[in-house]
């Protein structure tokens, strides 16, 4: 039978009718609708039992308790732990983003050995045995050549068991070069040491203060323990506590303060002494305290009264003298006034003269070791390991001068001076550092004076990073031995920045290790074992957990259960016994170092007219500027007046911009004595004319595409300015030139 056109049409019509009467079109339509509503490539998060695991956040020195919500084995959300002594349920933006670090592509998946040039980011996976054997071989070689002291470690923290194990390793090996990264802890520790004779951390009874003068401290930018400060700020608002913020830029803190006093940057110490002048002149200081518990008052007050009159201070700081007098009076008339310093988040050391000037204000008001005041908080004393038995090599190594010069005759009171290291490496030939370990730090990003640093870096033959993440330092290392990330490991956090009670938090594993990583504590123990005696015998522990168990003894179980240990009824030492200076008093002029406070102000590097402006950094709570790179969530919250595509916007006052012929959003070249960068300009009424402000925490080159290449690293444009007395890096800004392109 031949199929003609009509038959064919008939067949088609029949087919269509049959199809209509079959479920095919209707079911297909429905299925396609469902398919289009649930694209198969849209991830479907797996369901499961919800559980909560408490641990301690280690992304900043804040020591917050965090509660991780889990669904099955997956961690899905980080929240603040209710009832925790430091943050009581609150959490900051970085702590919230932790899971993006845990599961993110910036993790180092296994031990990696460099195959290309340094920084080329070409790696070969190696096994842990192989990697540790390689390090042990390098170390044994150095030790054999009596060069044990050329091994150095840069660590982000000290005091906890892991950095202490590292320090112990260096001691047994024969190197004094355990160097902590700089922060305001350096200056506050030195201030307490010089003026109070205390080996202690600074604590602020901030919730009980009733008048706060902040000399540039970013109370709401991440200074101290950030969540605690946010909470305190709310308490102040409820109780009508006045906050006066002194800084040249309208920061978050300044915006929330009751009074914002813009000041010429770098002159904060002068203002502190100007206030002291008024308080002394008007005799508003607490005579009971000053009379019985201080020494050197007469000489100090004479100097202050003579040198720091409101008129002079007005010229220096740009704050008019009536304001100075008013502020001094309000401060002195408050019941529990408190003066604090440490710029921004406190990620730099700062000048000791400024810290001592501010601390003197507190002393004048007698609020040392008292409610609402500044407390000397003894460091945690949980580590009582036996003395290291050193052999001849170790003893000889330990007697060598520290490479950063800390503790030498010149810088007797300094403990860590990391900023000096690049210069010292460049000065020596061969390099004074033959092997560098980096632990919880990212010096390749955070150290300033990049030209000097890169030169020094190239001279170090062997660089080992313990980073969990592919940060700048790891990327420029020879070997990466990735640590478990903080949510995967045990570690004690012996400190909460600025907290006024002795505190130990415990980080606990909330998920199993996601990659082929090893706890750095265990890596150190295995290295010691590989080196054999005498290094090995300094470590009588099977593994790191055994070490923790041994360290905390009968408190270990309780610590594991509660997750922290706090002396909640801690009272600071009585004034009769707390001051361990030679005079047993608070020393306005420290006997140990009479000139310590002579540099009240430190000049910024660079000269006019080549550099007519001053560049200052500013910290933002939405950007991590320490050794942690910002996770994608945080970068997402950065306003488009700070970052536009990959361009960084610097803040400039409209008048300054006008004089330079630059308008909003336009590109410009920012040049300092240390570097040059192409930026864009954001006009902001909240910044003092003549300044350029740049956010910290951007300009990463490593990590992933969500962070690398965004903005400029402020540390590329600045160099250290050494305080000649203390040795600390007192740089707060740098002179700069901004020109249109």
């Amino acid at each position, binding site marked *: 039978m031949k*199929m003609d*056109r009509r038959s064919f049409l008939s067949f*088609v019509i*029949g087919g269509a009718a049959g199809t209509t009467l079959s479920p*095919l079109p209707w079911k297909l339509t*429905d299925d396609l609708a469902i398919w289009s509503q*649930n694209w198969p490539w849209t991830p479907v998060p797996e369901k499961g*039992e919800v559980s909560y695991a408490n641990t301690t956040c280690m992304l900043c020195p804040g020591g917050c308790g965090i509660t991780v919500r889990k669904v099955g084995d997956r961690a899905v959300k980080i929240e603040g732990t209710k009832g925790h002594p430091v943050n009581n349920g609150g959490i900051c933006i970085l702590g919230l983003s932790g899971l993006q670090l845990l599961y993110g592509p910036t993790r180092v998946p296994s031990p990696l050995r460099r195959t290309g040039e340094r920084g080329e980011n070409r790696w070969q996976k190696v096994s842990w045995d192989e990697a540790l054997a390689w390090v042990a071989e390098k170390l044994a070689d150095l030790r054999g050549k009596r060069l044990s002291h050329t091994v150095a470690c840069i660590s982000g923290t000290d005091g906890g068991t892991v950095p202490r194990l590292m320090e112990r390793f260096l001691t047994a090996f024969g190197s004094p070069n355990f160097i902590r990264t700089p922060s305001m802890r350096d200056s506050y520790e030195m201030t307490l040491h010089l003026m109070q004779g205390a080996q202690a951390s600074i604590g602020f009874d901030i919730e009980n203060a009733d008048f706060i003068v902040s000399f540039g401290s970013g109370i709401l930018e991440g200074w101290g323990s950030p969540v605690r400060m946010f909470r305190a700020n709310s308490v102040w608002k409820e109780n009508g506590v006045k906050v006066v913020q002194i800084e040249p830029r309208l920061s978050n803190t300044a915006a929330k303060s009751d009074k914002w006093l813009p000041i010429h940057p770098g002159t904060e110490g002068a203002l502190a002494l100007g206030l002291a002048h008024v308080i002394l002149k008007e005799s508003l200081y607490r005579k009971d305290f000053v009379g019985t518990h201080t020494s050197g008052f007469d000489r100090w007050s004479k100097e202050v009264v003579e040198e720091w009159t409101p008129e002079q201070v007005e010229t220096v700081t740009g704050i008019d003298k009536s304001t100075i007098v008013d502020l001094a009076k309000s401060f002195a008339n408050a019941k529990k006034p408190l003066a604090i310093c440490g710029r921004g988040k406190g990620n730099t050391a700062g000048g000791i003269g400024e810290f001592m000037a501010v601390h003197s204000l507190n002393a004048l008001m007698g609020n040392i070791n008292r409610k609402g005041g500044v407390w000397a908080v003894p460091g945690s004393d949980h580590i009582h390991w036996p003395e290291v038995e050193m052999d001849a090599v170790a003893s000889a190594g330990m007697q060598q001068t520290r490479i950063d010069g800390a503790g030498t005759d010149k810088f007797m009171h300094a403990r860590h001076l990391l900023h000096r290291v690049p210069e010292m490496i460049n000065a020596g030939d061969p390099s004074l550092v033959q092997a560098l370990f980096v632990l919880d730090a990212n010096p390749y990003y955070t150290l300033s004076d990049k030209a000097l640093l890169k030169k020094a870096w190239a001279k170090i033959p062997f660089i080992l990073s313990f980073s969990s993440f592919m940060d700048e330092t790891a990327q420029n290392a020879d070997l990466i031995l990735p640590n478990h990330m903080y949510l995967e490991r045990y570690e004690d956090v012996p400190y909460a920045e600025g907290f006024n009670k002795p505190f130990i938090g415990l980080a606990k594993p909330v998920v199993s290790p996601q990659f082929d990583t090893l706890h750095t504590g265990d890596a150190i123990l295995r290295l010691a074992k590989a080196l054999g005696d005498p290094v090995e015998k300094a470590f009588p522990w099977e593994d790191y957990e055994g070490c923790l168990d041994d360290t905390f003894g009968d408190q270990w179980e309780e610590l594991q259960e509660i997750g922290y240990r706090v002396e909640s009824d801690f009272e600071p030492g009585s004034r009769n016994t707390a001051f361990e200076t030679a005079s047993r008093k608070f020393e306005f002029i420290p006997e140990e170092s009479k000139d310590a406070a002579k540099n009240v102000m430190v000049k910024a590097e660079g000269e006019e007219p080549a550099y007519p402006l001053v560049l200052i950094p500013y910290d933002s709570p939405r950007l991590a500027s320490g050794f942690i790179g910002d996770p994608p969530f945080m970068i997402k919250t950065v306003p488009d007046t700070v970052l536009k595509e990959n361009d960084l916007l610097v803040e400039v006052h409209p008048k300054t911009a006008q004089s330079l012929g630059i308008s909003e959003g336009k590109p410009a070249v920012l040049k300092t004595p240390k570097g040059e960068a192409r930026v864009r300009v954001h006009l902001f009424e909240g910044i003092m004319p003549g300044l350029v402000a740049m956010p910290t925490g951007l300009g990463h080159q490593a990590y992933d595409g969500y962070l690398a290449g965004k903005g400029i690293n402020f540390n590329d444009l600045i160099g250290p300015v050494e305080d000649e007395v203390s040795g600390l890096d007192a740089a707060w800004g740098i002179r700069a030139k901004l020109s249109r392109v």
Partner: protein
Amino acid sequence: MSTNDDKAKEKAVAETENHPGHSEDKKGKGSGGSILLFFLVGIIASLLVGWVVFPKLLYSQKKQPINFNHAFHVETVDEGCASCHFFREDGSFSGVPKLAQCTGCHEEAQGEDPEEIKFVTQYVEKGREVPWLVCSRQPNCVFFSHAAHVELAKMECVTCHGPIGESTHSKIYEENRITGVSRDIWGRNIAGIKRNSWDRMKMEDCAECHAEAAAKEVSELEGPMEGFFNNAVKIAFPKSLSGRKTSVQTQNEACFVCHK
């Protein structure tokens, strides 16, 4: 100015003018019988395709990793379905048991059943979760609260899941190749016809039951006459006067109640 479109139109017109009556040439050549035959062939072929071939193509068939005997387990346990499919303390429903629940009894094989031995050797001993294929899994946009239905409304498991507790072996899991969901959501019957309340799990099936329940609630709450009246109104005007308005667009709670 003449555009390309205009030109194309002109050309088309010209072509039709040049070939008039072409279609008429073939008129009357095919017989009525063969037309009918082809029609029938077409209709039967397409019906076969639609009713028989299409469902076969639409669903892929997978065997469960373990042939599970529900009936046997229900007999052994004390609390029926809830012995294994229970509510967690936070109100969420545990669904398919995890391995840890099974190992309570099956740390070692308790009998000779090859399926149990397979379960013990391949999953329990290796600590691997069994990749059960869940017939009642809804697409990810659906939020279903077991607590609201079982605890609050006191519904029986059977109402939606059917007499699965009486089954002695696992049925073949059929997955819709387009949507990726189980065949049990649409129902075994490809036409979508259901005989029992548990035959389908589409949104219409939820809605059907909810409408009945709502009507019942109204009649129970108010006097019999009033209840009757309200029910009548509800059936006649399902989206307006019936009961209380609970949302603006749908009048019937916001869609958020069952969607996420």
